[in-house]
């Protein structure tokens, strides 16, 4: 029997589910291998009671999400999270820094007491349940998604690249932004994107999360020695990695 797969979204911009629809050339082939029981973005059906693989996009932002994830973990043999929001908390996690209630008031005003109830400070899926496979990035890369999905379907181990982005960036022969006086987060960020942003002339924003192999302390020293303001580096790193506590100075 083909594995039954469900795709669901928590708090996100749907960009990674859109990326799934962007696999035009391979989408129908992939669909031939699985029984896509539910896809929130693309069908008017409802979640089935049983399934084998759960693909989850988005950050946890409500008590409803927390309950849903517990049910999903109890049902699915494999949990796969896609995109920065689900993997690191991503941009939604920034809202949890400082006073969440004050931010809420800023958006909905004093009359807003009734709406957006049951809110929790935005967090990655791994903060609530165990996660088996991760596809990082904002948005996730479609090729990487297909690779991780096929590993998941075959029961192979999750293997996310853990070296910092700079390692790959050098092989692309890009001129280093740090030498041009611009902050780039390649020293911290896990690779696997092919240094796409730097190759197109834009410094790394850290969307793939912190690399396990990154030496954060030493990277900060290097940046300080090059004359960068380490507070600014930490602030920029926080856009996608505010909850990745590994970063310290």
């Amino acid at each position: 029997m083909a594995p039954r797969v469900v795709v669901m979204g928590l708090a996100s911009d749907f960009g990674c589910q859109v990326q799934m629809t962007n696999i035009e050339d391979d989408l129908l082939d992939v669909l031939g291998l699985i029984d896509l029981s539910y896809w929130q973005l693309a069908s008017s059906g409802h979640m089935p009671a049983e399934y084998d693989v759960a693909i989850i996009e988005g950050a946890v932002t409500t008590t409803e999400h927390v309950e849903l994830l517990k049910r999903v973990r109890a049902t699915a043999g494999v949990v796969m999270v896609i995109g920065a929001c689900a993997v690191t908390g991503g941009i939604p996690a920034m809202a949890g820094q400082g006073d969440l209630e004050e931010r809420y008031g800023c958006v909905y005003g004093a009359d807003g007491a009734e709406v957006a109830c049951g809110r929790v400070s935005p967090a990655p899926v791994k903060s609530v349940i165990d996660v088996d496979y991760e596809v990082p990035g904002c948005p996730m890369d479609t090729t990487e998604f297909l690779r991780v999905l096929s590993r998941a379907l075959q029961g192979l181990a999750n293997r996310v690249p853990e070296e910092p982005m700079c390692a790959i960036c050098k092989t692309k022969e890009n001129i280093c932004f740090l030498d041009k006086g611009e902050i780039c987060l390649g020293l911290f960020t896990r690779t696997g994107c092919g240094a796409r942003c730097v190759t197109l002339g834009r410094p790394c924003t850290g969307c793939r999360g912190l690399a396990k192999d990154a030496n954060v302390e030493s990277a900060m020293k290097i940046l300080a020695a090059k004359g960068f303001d380490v507070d600014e580096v930490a602030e920029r790193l926080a856009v996608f990695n505010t909850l990745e506590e590994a970063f310290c100075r």
Partner: protein
Amino acid sequence: MGRRYDEVSLITSRICGICSPNHALTSLKAIEAAFGIHVSERTTLMRKLLLYGSFLQNHATHLYLFAAPDFVGLPSVFPLAQTHPDVVDRALRIKKLGNDLTTLVGGRPVHPITAVVGGFTSEPDMGKLAAFRELLEEATNDAAQTVELFDAFEVDDLVTTGDMFALSASDDYAIYDGETTSLDHGWRRPVTEYRSVITEEVVGHSNAKHSTADGRPFMVGSLPRVNISGDRLGAKARAALDKSGFKIGSRNSFHNNLCQAVELVDVCERCIGYIDQLVDGGGSSVPVQFDVVAGSGVGSSEAPRGTLYHGYSFDADGRVTAGDIITPTAQNLANLEADMRVYAPGVAHLPEAEFLLAIERLVRAYDPCLSCSVH
């Protein structure tokens, strides 16, 4: 709040992965308005390609993947691929073309990389860009067939409650730039006045705020745009429109889908023109020099689902002190609910499943966007 100006488009692009180029570029326009930056003609052309790539992708996805299954009585696109493979192929062709165009100019289909304050960090390969010409010619035919397909679908009669708003410009089918325009009242107002045109209020039953203007709901999107700027459509789009049963000035919200199809034709025609100008023309898209100054700015553009507004204030260090964004879906919600109240009694006699499908069809005519609606 407190973020640096050069992080704004990076963050606001993530409001919506479905029309991310629109959010990215609209926020850039607001920042540029605040700092008094004028971008080059070449930058504007490349930005238009990014926006139109987003239109191709969004309209094709919505029309074929989400709306079309309704009209042939199927729950999703997957069984449609079995019963109407040629139709799904056409959809995927147009969608892929939009994605490929956005990727060539912006670096990837979702969350463009290259568009920054003042210009672009990288230029597309002109040979690759020129190759899009032929693909767009073919897509013009695909798009014209899409108009025929949706013209053949029967829609219920409905007269929408509210006004219709879209950006308009005297010399263009306004997408990248224009002034807020009312169909019913005929006025045009600069986008800098959007806060005094649109009133937003929190409602108890929804996380999204509802918008009204002069106490009335209003609709934004393809139908309002075609109604307001239909005489400025390209020749082929206009021909497809005239061949269809649609009459400019329609107040039937269900016609939004047909108008999306007409816009697909228009987008293909326009992109061919922009590509010719970029390939033949000179100029530079390298970000222009500018000074960071304290100030406020508003940016607006037409996103696939309607007018999008971004407004920001900055301190002298270029940090955000205030930000305000009104998305098309949020503007549409009050009018969609008003339409439901008008439409529901007429279909209330149907069995529950059919009744729900009829209501869902109305919702899908508006092409609401889940990710935008809650912001």
